[in-house]
Structure formats: C-alpha cells, structure tokens
C-alpha cells in the first residue's frame, strides 16, 4: 500500500504514449481541420495583403468612421500609420490574419458552447474544469506534440490561441444568459417561443453586454498569444518581440508590442460599441 502510494505514477509516460498513439491514428481528420484553419488564415492574409498600406488604412478608417465615429477613425490612421512607419507592416498583416482567424473560430465555437452551457447542467459541469484546463495548461505542453499534427507555422499558433482564448466567450455568454431576468424568460415562454426564438429574441439580447465582454476578452487573450505563436513559427509581430528578447533590445520589442496593442484597440472598438 505505502509502496503503491510512494511509487511515482508514470503519468508522463502514459501521456507520451497516448500522444504517439494519437499521432499514429488520427492524423487524417486533424489534417482536414488543419487545412481548414490554414485556408482561413491564408484567405485573410491574402485579402489583407493585396492592398498597399495607405489604401488599407484609409479603407479601415472609413469603416471605423461609419461604425464607430471619428475618434476611432483617427486612431486607425495614426495607429496603423505608426506601425507602417516603424516598418512592421507585413508583420502586422500576418498577425492580423491569424488573430482574425483565431477570434472567428473561438467565437463561433465559444458562443454556441456558452449557450449550451447555460441551458444544460451537464454541459455546464463538464465544461467548467475543461475551460479551467484550457486556460491554464501551458501551451508548450501540448504544442510540441500538436506540431506533429499541424506542422509548424500559423496553424498550431491559431490552435493554441483558440484553446487559450475560447474560455471567456463561453463563460461570459453563459453568465449573460443566466442573468437574463426570469420574468423576461417567462414572457418569452408564455407567447410560445421555440428554444431558438427564445435564444435569439430574449436571451441573447439580454446577455449582450456580457457577450460583448466575452468578445473583448477573446480578442485580448488572442493577442496575448502572439509571442507564443511566433515561437512556433507563426511569424507576425511576435517575431520582432522575440528578436528583441535575444538582443535585449527594449525599443524594438516595444515597437512590435505596440503594434499588437494597436490591433487590440482597433479590433476591440470595431467589434464592440461605444459603451462597453
């Protein structure tokens, strides 16, 4: 008994073996997934990269002006102009493409899962530790094995980003729906709403502020993964940051970091309205 207890459980070995097993047997479906992600990123990148910086900035500024007013438009011009001036334009585009992909994937999985979680106790109790797991397990731990499936580059970067950034949209969608007052849900039911109508017309509108916060956090956490993504070859603004690290070049790191922040602020403001 004591011996059993004091014997170190060879957990690590099991995991290694399991990973090997996975690699040996499940490369197919994972490849499809990987291809899909790659497809998204490439399209975003393609679309974003065709335009010269000046044109890109002007178009984005106009969109910002239309959607959110002139403050944001001005910020777009100044912020992206600065990035271009600092010579980080191509890195910016790469980062933007993979962040958009990550956020898109995270939201389009996360919000539905959050909805499920709010309606189904089993899902709720199962997802809770899983989300804790996904947010806190260090990406390096699963990334190196994951490279076997995804290869190097931006696909595993997106995967790691999604794993890390998916919890807030799930959790805040859940929270928002849970906080919709019972009397409104009751009114919805009384008129015979189907579950879908209930969701679209009662729950989601009521949960909107929380969901918006979930989107904000999803964007923020995605962008916080830029450097880790660069470590596995995703390129983008994380690369100059890494370079600055090895050369202890505070200035360069700051410039690239600032690029990330500028993307963060622009995306955040575009996704969400004035009032948080």
């Amino acid at each position, binding site marked *: 008994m004591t011996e059993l207890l004091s014997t170190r459980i060879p957990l690590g070995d099991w995991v290694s073996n399991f990973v090997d097993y996975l690699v040996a047997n499940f490369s197919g479906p994972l490849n499809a997934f990987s291809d899909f992600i790659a497809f998204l990123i490439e399209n975003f990148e393609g679309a974003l990269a065709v335009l010269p910086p000046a044109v890109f900035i002007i178009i984005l500024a106009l969109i910002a002006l239309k959607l959110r007013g002139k403050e944001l438009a001005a910020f777009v011009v100044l912020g992206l102009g600065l990035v271009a001036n600092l010579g980080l334009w191509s890195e910016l585009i790469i980062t933007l493409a993979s962040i958009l992909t990550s956020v898109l994937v995270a939201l389009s999985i996360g919000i539905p899962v959050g909805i499920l979680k709010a309606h189904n106790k089993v899902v709720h109790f199962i997802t809770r530790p899983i989300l804790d797991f996904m947010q806190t397990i260090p990406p390096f731990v699963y990334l190196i094995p994951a490279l076997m499936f995804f290869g190097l580059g931006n696909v595993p970067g997106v995967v790691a980003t999604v794993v890390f950034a998916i919890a807030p949209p799930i959790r805040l969608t859940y929270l928002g729906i849970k906080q919709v007052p019972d009397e409104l849900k009751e009114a919805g039911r009384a008129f015979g709403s189907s579950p879908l109508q209930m969701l679209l017309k009662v729950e989601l509108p009521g949960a909107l502020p929380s969901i918006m916060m979930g989107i904000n956090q999803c964007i923020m956490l995605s962008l916080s993964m830029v450097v880790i993504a660069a470590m596995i*070859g995703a390129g983008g603004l994380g690369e100059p940051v890494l370079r600055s690290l090895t050369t202890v070049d505070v200035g360069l790191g700051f410039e690239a970091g600032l690029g990330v922040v500028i993307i963060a602020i622009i995306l955040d403001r575009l996704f969400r309205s004035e009032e948080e």
Partner: protein
Amino acid sequence: FTPVEASADDTVNFGYVEWPGVTVKTAVASQILEDIGYETESSSYMQQVLFQGMRTGDVDAFLGTWLPTMEVNYREYYEDGVVEEVVTNLEQVLYATAVPEYVYEAGVTSMADLNEHADKFDHTIYGLEPGNDGNIIIQDAIDDGIYDLDDWTMMESSTAGMLAEVERATSQEEWIAFNGWEPHWMNLAYDIKYLDDPENIWGEDDKVLTVVRSGYGDEQPEVYRFLEQFVIDQDIQNEWIYEYGHEDRDPEDVAQEWIGNNMDLVLEFLDGVESADGQPATEVIQEVYN
C-alpha cells in the same frame, strides 16, 4: 510516424533560433542562395520546435546546432534519424562561466575563486532556461561540491532573463557570475571575462553544426553542397553579431553588405555548386554583385 508532408516546392526552408549569430548566419546563407536563384524562406522558432519542424518537414536546414549545449534536445531527433549533420560551421566556440571584468580584476579569475567571494555573488550563478546543458553542468558541480560550490544556487530563467540580469548588475557594478558564451553580442556589449575551469567541468569541444533533415541531401544536392562548404570563423561571426545585435541593423542588410565585401570567401562557399538553373553559382553571384 506519418510526418506532415514536406512542402512540395523547392523552396529552401531555413529554421533559426533568435540568437544574433544564427540569425545573421542564416540571413547570409539565404541571401547567397537567393542570389544564385533558389527560393528561400527563414522562420524563427524555439529550438525545441525547430527540430520538431524537421520531423514534420517544415524545416530543411538549421545552421545553429550548438553542441553540447543543445545536446539533450538534439539527441533524440538525431537518434531517431530525423536530423542529419552536415558540417561544423563554426569551431572554437566557448561556453563557460563568466564574470564582469571588474570582478575578474578584483581577483576572481577561476571558478575556484568563486566561493571565496560567495557573499558578493549572493551564492548564485545565473544560467539559462531550465534544462539547458550549461545549467546542468553547474548544477552537477554544485551537487558534487566541486569548487566548493555546495551552498550555491543555480538561478534558472531564460537567455533574455539572464542577460537582463547581467546588464543590471554591470550597470551598478554588482558582482555576478553567469553562463556566458562566445560568439555572442554579450561579449561586445559588456566587458566580461571567462573563468578558468581547472576541473574541466565545462568540457572543451564546443562547436556549432549545420544540420538538415534526413535525406535533404538527395532532394537538394546543390544546396547541400553549399551548406557543406559554408564554414566561418569567430571573427566573422563577431562582426555579424556586432552589426546586428549591437548596431541594430537588419540582418538582411548586414548579410548583403558582408557578401559584397567578402566575395572571395563566398566563392569558396559556392565552389562547384550549381545555380538553380544549372549555371555555375560562382559566376552567377559575381554577376549579381558587379
């Protein structure tokens, strides 16, 4: 294993680690290859990821396999036959315990002197990221009480962390002992000295290898041949590091300028190599730089 398929095209995929020497070295090699008509692509990775990339086929060549520093990491891939050694591209590299010059001049010239001033060093030697072979060497020394280091600690963090600590210490003339190596811009940025190692715990034969993924020689014999001949020395390496790491220049600029200024050496690298369209590379490159 079913590795992810290598990219179908002929692009030469260099992987590098963000170490100044390797960065510029990779830039020079790619520049030369581009000049003679090959497509190249360089991406930076963590070293662990890089070797994994050779397994998955994403990375073709790596010019910075520093042995034995990378030994632990590298060995597995080497033994698995994922990686193939091409050549030692840089000899006489040094990896050892270093101190700032003012410490050296104060009398700490050998590792055996460390313990005398233990308090000034705060009983600490700074190393790189956990698992690094230098760290392990020091830790073993501590564990075995070599140089009376028994009550010392090995402070592990990361390259950047350690260098920042060195910068902090030197700017305030504090005493510090750390794992330094050459070539690296730290040798230019700070006045540092390497300590004697009478017990020879660090070993002697440090070197930097060029490695490719197995079988690459068959796929790209010309590139392989170039890589075999691409060998440099300490001075060149230091120049690169200085220009890039200290003067903050783009590695591409540094590479281009250096090639232009050292055509004779470049011609040696390209001796017998054919350009992408089958011409003698030596001729092609000379045309480019005239």
